[in-house]
């Protein structure tokens, strides 16, 4: 498996560390138990495109949002997390891919 880092170019997967679905890009708000529960425990499991987080640990230390097809394993998009969303924890408006499609 290879991931094309937007900075370093195509690299072997052993340079990266996997974190999980892109859900971690949002932070739940205090006291909202349902959204905290959702944030921590509930994940879509689509057969198809999934956005997930990878860290280029042995490379440029960029966190990446990788869109990967869970069936074909084809990676269709890689963007730096820093460029993917707004700051301050607010990346609202980012719809989960695959879900509901």
């Amino acid at each position, binding site marked *: 498996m290879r991931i094309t880092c937007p900075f*370093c170019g195509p690299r072997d997967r052993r340079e990266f560390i996997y974190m999980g679905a892109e859900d971690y890009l949002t932070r739940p708000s205090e006291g909202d138990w349902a959204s905290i529960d959702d944030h921590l425990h509930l994940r879509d499991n689509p057969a198809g495109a999934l956005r997930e987080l990878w860290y280029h640990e042995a490379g440029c230390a960029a966190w990446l949002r990788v869109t990967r097809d869970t069936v074909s394993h084809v990676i269709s998009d890689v963007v730096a997390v820093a460029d993917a969303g707004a700051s301050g924890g607010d990346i609202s408006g980012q719809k989960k891919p695959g879900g509901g499609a």
Partner: protein
Amino acid sequence: MADLIARTALAGQGPVTWGGLTLREVTWDRITSVAPFRGADVGALLDWPAPNRVVARDGGRIVWTGPGQAFLFGPVPEGLADHAALTDQSDGWAGLALEGKGAAEVLARLVPLDLDTMGPGEASRTLLGHMNALIIRVGTGFEALVFRSMARTAWHDIEAAMRGVAARQRR
């Protein structure tokens, strides 16, 4: 009063040669990480390198190490600290130079990169075996920077790769 003696990461380890290639420790006077502050322009003080590139400069070079970060080898320009976060990385890294024909073939045992197409002026943050490394293409070979604490493992792994490649050529 203390009397401090400086020692390099691979002090006591002399160069080794296998199959026409030489591995030796390489050291630099000063390595500084440079991370320009938000909105800062360091262009007047430095030629900022593109990703995976090295820019040569008087008395040193500057190597891209990540988005918004580079390692400056050599003297730090006056006033740079006003525009960028600087840290002294000089002692954090062990330098190993592998030189000679076929250096890429040896490092291919350890580095998951297409080293054959890596030209002068290129550098990559990548892996050397299980170690994070900064690999820089130099004249006749490569320089590898690994965490200082891992210097002995890096030396062992590269020398083992050299011996294996040399043994293939022996018959």
